């Protein structure tokens, strides 16, 4: 796939996680630039540090932990909103979390993260996800797809003017296949569409998730006694 920004095989990354051991581990696994193409240009352990480091280094991708001292990943996203909205050199966020609680995950995605992976992910998969996020795609883990389906499933009869909040049949199908563990390529084969189309469906889902109204999400959270 071609990339709008920079070198194909190079990506500048900032690691944000409050556990030093975890940062070191990730650094060891993906930070060997000659092999993976990932260059770790900065690290941060809390919200303030993260904002400072990200602003100073302007990486292409930020690996963002959901739980952080000082307000959590959502707070980082809020304070870096201007950077990620920059059309020339957008900073993209990929949530990397040990938590698989629905409200955490949906929270950062709605805050503007481009994807979500769990910390049990393997090194190569993580590198792959980083490049995909750099290229503007959304990265959905099966679990995230499950949460999203859940979030939209309980709102089966929305008012007519909230068309944007609904998933199309096709988007739902794509999400289901992601939840079943299919790679984008496999989904394309299964549905007889191109990988690009799969990616655009996934991006559409992400956009809807970020735009879907607060009321609906509150209802969803209340139904699960999360709030």
């Amino acid at each position, binding site marked *: 796939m071609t990339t709008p920004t920079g070198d194909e095989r190079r990506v500048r990354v900032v690691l944000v996680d409050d556990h030093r051991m975890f940062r070191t581990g990730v650094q060891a696994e993906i930070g060997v630039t000659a092999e993976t193409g990932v260059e770790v240009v900065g690290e941060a352990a809390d919200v303030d540090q993260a904002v400072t480091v990200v602003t100073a280094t302007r990486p292409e991708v930020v690996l963002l932990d959901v739980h952080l001292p000082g307000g959590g990943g959502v707070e980082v996203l809020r304070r870096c909103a201007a950077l990620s909205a920059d059309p020339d050199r957008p900073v993209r966020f990929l949530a990397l979390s040990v938590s698989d609680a629905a409200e955490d995950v949906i929270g950062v995605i709605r805050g503007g993260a481009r994807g979500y992976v769990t910390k049990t992910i393997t090194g190569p998969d993580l590198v792959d996800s980083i490049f995909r996020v750099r290229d503007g795609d959304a990265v959905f883990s099966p679990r995230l797809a*499950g949460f999203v*389906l859940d979030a939209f499933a309980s709102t089966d009869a929305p008012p007519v003017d909230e068309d944007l909040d609904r998933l199309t049949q096709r988007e739902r199908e794509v999400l289901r296949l992601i*939840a*079943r*563990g*299919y790679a984008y*390529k496999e989904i394309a*084969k299964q549905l007889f569409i191109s990988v690009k189309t799969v990616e655009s469906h996934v991006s559409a889902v992400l956009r809807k998730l970020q735009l879907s109204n607060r009321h609906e999400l509150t209802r969803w959270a209340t139904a699960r006694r999360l709030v």
Partner: protein
Amino acid sequence: MSASPPPPPGPSGGVSGASFLAPPQPGADGVRKLYRSSEGRMVGGVARGLAGHLGLPVLWVRALFVLLAVFNGIGILLYAVFWFFVPLGVGGVAEAKEPRDARSWLAGKRPDKGQVMALIALAVGTGILVDNLNLGAANRAVWPLLVIGVGVALVWRQADNARKARWVEMSHGKRFWPLVRAAGGIVLVIAGVTGFIVVRGSGGHLGGILQAALAVLVGVALIAGPYLVRMTQDLSAERLLRIRAQERAEVAAHVHDSVLHTLTLIQRHAEEPREVARLARAQERELRAWLYRPEGTGRDDEPTTLAEAVRAAAAEVEDAHGVPVEVVCVGDCPLDERLVAQTQAAREAMVNGAKYGGDGAVQVYAEVEEARVFVSVRDHGPGFDLDRVPDDRMGVRESIIGRMRRNGGEARLRPAPGGGTEVELEMERVAAA
């Protein structure tokens, strides 16, 4: 964390900082201690507590007190002494092993009759007492004393309630009546004291006496106030610390029982990555379940909903075969017979995936829709062709396809697009769900 920490064993008196704990029950091995009963009492709980302690019917003890009251008020004096010195407890009542049971027991059996009878007896007793006291001019002081006594009783009873409210979580909304009762008690005491002074003939100096009394009171309050405030603060701080320590102890115990043991095992098996991964995953799952368990659900036996059942099956397979099983559930519904069958079929599919699917994770996806339940089990192994399996191998045919068909569902096996095998299980839901 759980809402109410279990009362720890040990002879904590129950009056000091540990007042959030229920005093220990008079156990068979421990020393039998006398407590006033906080359950089903009429005035101070002395009679019921004594009855429980001595193993006598409550009615006898009460009758005895009333009888004694007739003789120059000895009964009342005794009762007051007991009330003063014996701490309030939830124990002391033989029948009331658990407070909640005791309450329902009391509510169920003779709810009002006993109380009314006792009150009548009390009134009669008091009448006789007053009659005995031979109210002449010299004994006019008795009336104010009686009024003071009633007022003191009211206030003390109130204090008992406040203490009890700390053990049993009472509704916070009912703040009004306790206040009224306490105020009433205080008014009665003041009225009694005033009456006493007036009756004793020093009515003329009443104004002066009241002023002096007020001055003394203010002085005492000024001196003792700060100490009292400090003491209450210290007490509540200590209570908080105790609660925290207890919670930490619980966490520490759990971490010790599970996590530390697993880490030890992992060190011992350091050469076998598969075993290490299996142990770590099992421990992670367990710890997660423990940390994020929904409050109040102490259940750890049979799963009752589909998502729980699928997760439980996946956990078992993961533990048994050392292959990661990733579960994604969308929606949930209660289990019924057909869904149990579907879960069993899914479990069988997971076992197959774990056995023949190589080292890659087995992916399980369960979705509950309005009309049907869909489960997909996918592995990343070399693939599988049902037609080439000999007829005598019954695993897939009977345990998965046959089981689904017998229960009115459908099972499909097919090669997954990216390699591996996918088993799709579909079951119609019972309409009433």
